[in-house]
């Protein structure tokens, strides 16, 4: 029997040679609540014989040495799960990332102004959709009420708190779906009365990534804020993209003002 197994083993490893190297699909990720107050549960799945799923929680890339997924992950802090599928006969899957975000440090704020207006097809349920703590689906068409979309090179938003609130971070919750020409912006700047308080720059991706939620964080000086102006500069679609040189769409579903510990 062991001889037979050895024979089959040799046979199969040589079989794979000469095949086009087919890649595994990214694992399916199920999150019960992307935005949570106590905890979120993350499930990974790629149901195919011989597939191993591995993941990290600290933002580091996933390798053959990363933790092996066995059971759903219970997370009580903001975290980014990165996961990949591995199989001896196929190329490793693309990396899939899913961030879950704790709401416990957030301050109540409203978006009171935006310019330009979102594209007529992607107005969501109006500006209030940006602060209702309702996450849009990865398939944006499935939750049209949640997503506001712009095809513009720059976008201004004005945020107002109900009462002056201590905060040190502004977070934009965005969609990244390069295949649909939607990308996280290149630059986010936060102003108060014309004074630049903080900025975050994002490099264009080097290749197409699976569709994902993105949280772009802008650190701010710890102060009590009433109004803030946010400038969003869109990404230019990179050279590898079908629409290279054109402006990428920005899809926004939430804005958070928070005081992080």
């Amino acid at each position, binding site marked *: 029997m062991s001889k037979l197994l050895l024979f*089959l083993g040799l046979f199969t490893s040589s079989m794979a040679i000469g*095949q086009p190297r087919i890649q595994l699909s990214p694992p399916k990720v199920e999150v019960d609540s992307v935005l949570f107050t106590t905890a979120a549960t993350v499930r990974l799945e790629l149901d195919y014989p011989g597939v191993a799923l591995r993941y990290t929680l600290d933002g580091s890339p996933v390798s053959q040495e990363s933790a092996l997924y066995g059971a759903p992950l219970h997370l009580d802090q903001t975290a980014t799960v990165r996961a990949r599928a591995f199989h001896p006969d196929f190329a490793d899957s693309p990396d899939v990332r899913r961030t879950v975000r704790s709401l416990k440090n957030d301050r109540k704020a409203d978006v009171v102004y935006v310019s330009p207006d979102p594209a007529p097809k992607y107005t969501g349920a109006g500006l209030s959709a940006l602060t209702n703590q309702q996450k849009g689906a990865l398939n944006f068409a499935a939750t049209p009420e949640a997503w506001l979309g712009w095809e513009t090179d720059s976008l201004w938003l004005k945020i107002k708190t109900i009462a002056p609130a201590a905060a040190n971070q502004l977070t934009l919750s965005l969609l990244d779906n390069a295949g649909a020409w939607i990308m996280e912006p290149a630059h986010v700047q936060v102003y108060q009365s014309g004074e630049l308080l903080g900025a975050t720059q994002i490099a264009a991706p080097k290749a197409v990534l699976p569709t994902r939620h993105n949280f772009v964080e802008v650190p701010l000086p710890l102060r009590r804020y009433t109004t803030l102006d946010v400038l969003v500069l869109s990404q230019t679609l990179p050279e590898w993209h079908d629409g290279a040189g054109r402006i990428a769409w920005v899809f926004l579903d939430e804005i958070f003002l928070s005081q992080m510990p």
Partner: protein
Amino acid sequence: MTNRRQFIKQSLWAAAGLGLVSWTSRGELLLGHGDFQYKVDLNWGALNPQFYPVKDCHELVQDRRGRIILLTNHTRNNILIYNHNGRLLEAWGTEYPGAHGLTLKDEGGEEFLYITDTERHEIIKTTLSGRVVWTWAYPKESGLYDAQEQYLPTETAIADNGDVYVADGYGLQYIMHYNQQGELLNVFGGKGKDNEQFLNAHGICIDNRGLVPELLITARQQNQLKRFGMDGVFKGIIDLPGAYICRPVVQGSEVYLATIWSGDGSSGTGFVSILDRNNRLVSAPGGVEPQYDGDQLRSMYQVLQVFSHPHDVCVDKDRNVYVAQWNAGFTYPIKLIRV
């Protein structure tokens, strides 16, 4: 053939314990499930793009002579005609910038093509060599359309009496029922979430498997296939969660559907769906194995990146499947060879 299939099944069963189910005994990748498993020929339709370019490969049909006819929205050659081995036999068509739907109908000995064009907002009937028989504009007489721009027809289905059903899948989502003379007999559907309405009525076909013919119409955004009588009366829904299905293609007792996206609808996804006589998903080449809990299909997703946005399938008499893809890097059709 049955013996061979049983032998392969048994070999697969033996291999399953070793985790080797993905390859044939000759080392070829196997896709699909149950009685519908396939080897893959990724290069079946490959041509020199300098001479015979494609943009999206939208739809495929097979004529009586066994030729595979491909419709692309590249106006150098909207129609490419292959033999079953993938050899190019003929190319024509320069006037269909929005070429989207392609249906073939044998009408008393002569075969005709019905092309829907989403940029011209028209349905065009041609001979197999490309001579235009007639062109139909948007259904103004329905009273539902103010301008031709609202009409983005994605598919036609042709009944044996010559009646033409048009799915306005990217437009107002109505299904138009005409006779062959172009008289509008009935309109049903429309955009919406009710049973008899559609979110993306992308594909339509006539299902002759039962005692009386029915229409199968795609509600792609809802991951559903809807059944209607030929008179437009709603009959039922087939739920295919996670499967963004395109046109249904009935062959024998099965329904085959290119599935353009899958799972969460991410780019680069998709597979091929095959329903049995009871309209249950029994095989999903490129996708996860279909599993039912009672009547509830598990939410489907892609497991191997063999396909990228399959847009239509054509099934030949040996039950091999030809797959045309949308937005797939200007690639040509793939062939699935049944084992």
